């Protein structure tokens, strides 16, 4: 395995935290500096989605469309047609939540390389409640032909992702979380669209995680180590196209799998891995995700992760279950 150059101790009190959306905002600014064609289109959430960094630096390349998600999506399609690299941003609950058909027709079928930023996705927008906690976005985007689906695990990776998206010729969706989360990667950690990375080697079970759940998976692996279980943790920042080779190589070694994501259990990363293994290499599998429920308000994401069974403890429990089945 190539060294993932992770932060040494992500569980220490001094572990640094940062908001993923902030990292992406910095990355978009960098992408704007690197590529003249990058434009930003926002729906009255410029500061909230951290597109403000780009908008302040490049006011002549920024379009404020007001509260009109369908419009930012389709304006983006038009701008891409004329050679621009449009990043359109809103909350994931509204875009892609409200704009799925426009994305399908004017971006995916029309094959225009629009970059859709779904901020405030998942349970990390804890206090806002169920209306704003988009849990379905990964699934909605994953079923669209031509679409690339990206979920960064921390702000450092999000920054790299923005630059990679600007250079990618396909339509992209990126899912961002609002609240601060622990930084687990470093500037040296590799990132490429389409690649999954072994963040921790192990032999008894493979945990495939994405987004903020990768942190939970790494914590779970520590807990399992104390129980004498060696867990391999794969971080899949690209949910589509899935890096099937990396996952299959690991699963052929461990023969048991748990997936972890902070979204609906149906059709997300867990769904993708289950589809892959069902066809290619069936082994005991458990998926961690929200089980066909809506979210709700809470002061912190941790309260919700615990309530919906998405925290490290639940991942570790699921690992015990698949290992038991493997040996049954």
């Amino acid at each position, binding site marked *: 395995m190539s060294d993932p150059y992770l932060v040494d101790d992500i569980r220490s009190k001094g572990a640094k935290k940062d908001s993923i959306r902030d990292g992406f905002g910095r990355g978009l600014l960098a992408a704007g500096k690197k590529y003249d064609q990058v434009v930003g289109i926002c729906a009255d959430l410029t500061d909230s989605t951290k597109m403000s960094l780009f908008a302040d630096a490049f006011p002549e390349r920024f*379009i404020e469309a007001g509260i*009109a998600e369908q419009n930012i999506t389709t304006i983006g399609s*038009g701008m891409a047609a004329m050679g621009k690299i449009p990043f359109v941003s809103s909350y994931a609950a509204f875009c892609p939540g409200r704009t799925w058909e426009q994305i399908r*027709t004017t971006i995916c079928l*029309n094959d225009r390389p629009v970059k859709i930023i779904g901020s405030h996705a998942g349970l990390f927008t804890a206090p806002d409640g169920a209306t704003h906690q988009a849990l379905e976005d990964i699934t909605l985007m994953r079923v669209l032909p031509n679409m690339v689906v990206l979920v960064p695990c921390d702000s450092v990776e999000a920054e790299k992702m923005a630059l990679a998206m600007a250079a990618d010729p396909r339509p992209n969706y990126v899912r961002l979380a609002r609240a601060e989360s622990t930084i687990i990667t470093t500037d040296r950690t590799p990132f490429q669209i389409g690649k999954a990375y072994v963040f921790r080697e192990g032999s008894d079970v493979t945990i495939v995680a994405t987004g903020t759940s990768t942190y939970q998976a790494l914590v779970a692996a520590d807990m399992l180590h104390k129980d004498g279980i060696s867990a391999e943790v794969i971080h899949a920042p690209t949910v589509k196209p899935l890096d099937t080779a990396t996952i299959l190589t690991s699963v052929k070694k461990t023969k048991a799998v748990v997936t972890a994501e902070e979204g609906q259990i149906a059709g997300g990363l867990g769904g993708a891995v289950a589809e892959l293994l069902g066809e290619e290499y069936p082994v005991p599998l458990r998926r961690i995700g929200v089980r066909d429920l809506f979210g709700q308000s809470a002061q912190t994401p941790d309260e919700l992760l615990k309530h919906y069974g998405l925290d490290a403890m639940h991942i570790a429990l699921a690992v015990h279950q698949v290992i038991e089945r493997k040996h049954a």
Partner: protein
Amino acid sequence: MNPSRKNSPHCQISVSGYNYTDMQQIFSIEALEIKAIAIRQDIIKMLELAHSGHPGGSLGQADIYAALYFNILKHDPKNPDWNERDILIQSNGHTCPVRYAAMAHAGYFSRDHLWTLRTFGSILQGHPERIKLPGVENTSGPLGSGLSQAAGMALALRMNKQQHRWVYVITGDGELNEGNNWEAIMLASKYKLTNMIAIVDRNNIQIDGPTEVVMPLEDLRAKWEAFGWHVLEIDGNDIEAVIDAVGMAKAIVEKPVVILAHTIPGKGVDFMEYDFHWHGVAPNHEQAKLALKEIHTLRGKINKEHD
């Protein structure tokens, strides 16, 4: 008729400093009307063979498309991605037969393809797909997203310092029920997108019936004006009026311009005209035969008018 348009075809012209050597010819109004007749004939034949499709709006817009493809648009059918071309966005993709027929006559592809409409493997999908047919600027069918794509193109062209390229967008009237349109209408006004021209096919019908019964659009002029657009109203079945209106729209530099083009749905076929039942039903063999006969008569009338 404006005598300056009675130029003979196959001449070389220069407009706004751009040379159109072999790419574009000037057609007389009579020649354009004959083109519109040919387009209508092809629409009927295509739909009869396809057994499905939308004749009402397609026939109604034949004059607008003839004006666009054979007079207004700066384009090169042999080089559909030409970086100096004007853009034509068709928002009401269900009326693609009129665009397909106009494109075939303009030389984008062989007319033989027209008879493959809506069949397996055809470049002419039931609703137009950009990837399958070079020269089509946008995949469309789901209504209400053409204006915003056009606005995005107009914005990008301005950023690219290519304001001299025009973005035309044709929408149906019924599709103005869609909210996305009004988001785009607001945005085009905010950003003063004077390099785009919208044309509304105001034919007063949609699938469920007359527009004013299904979801009243009037006062449509006042609505656009209230959103900050300049409104021109014309007879959309009068080719000269279409050309003149576009010319006028180009001269208005402080606001985006919409042309409310009043058309007769099913125009040219007596039993289809004004009847919303012909919005989305293909003619059978007998009906097609009768329709072609009526369109032929229309041609006779044109010849007479221009004698």
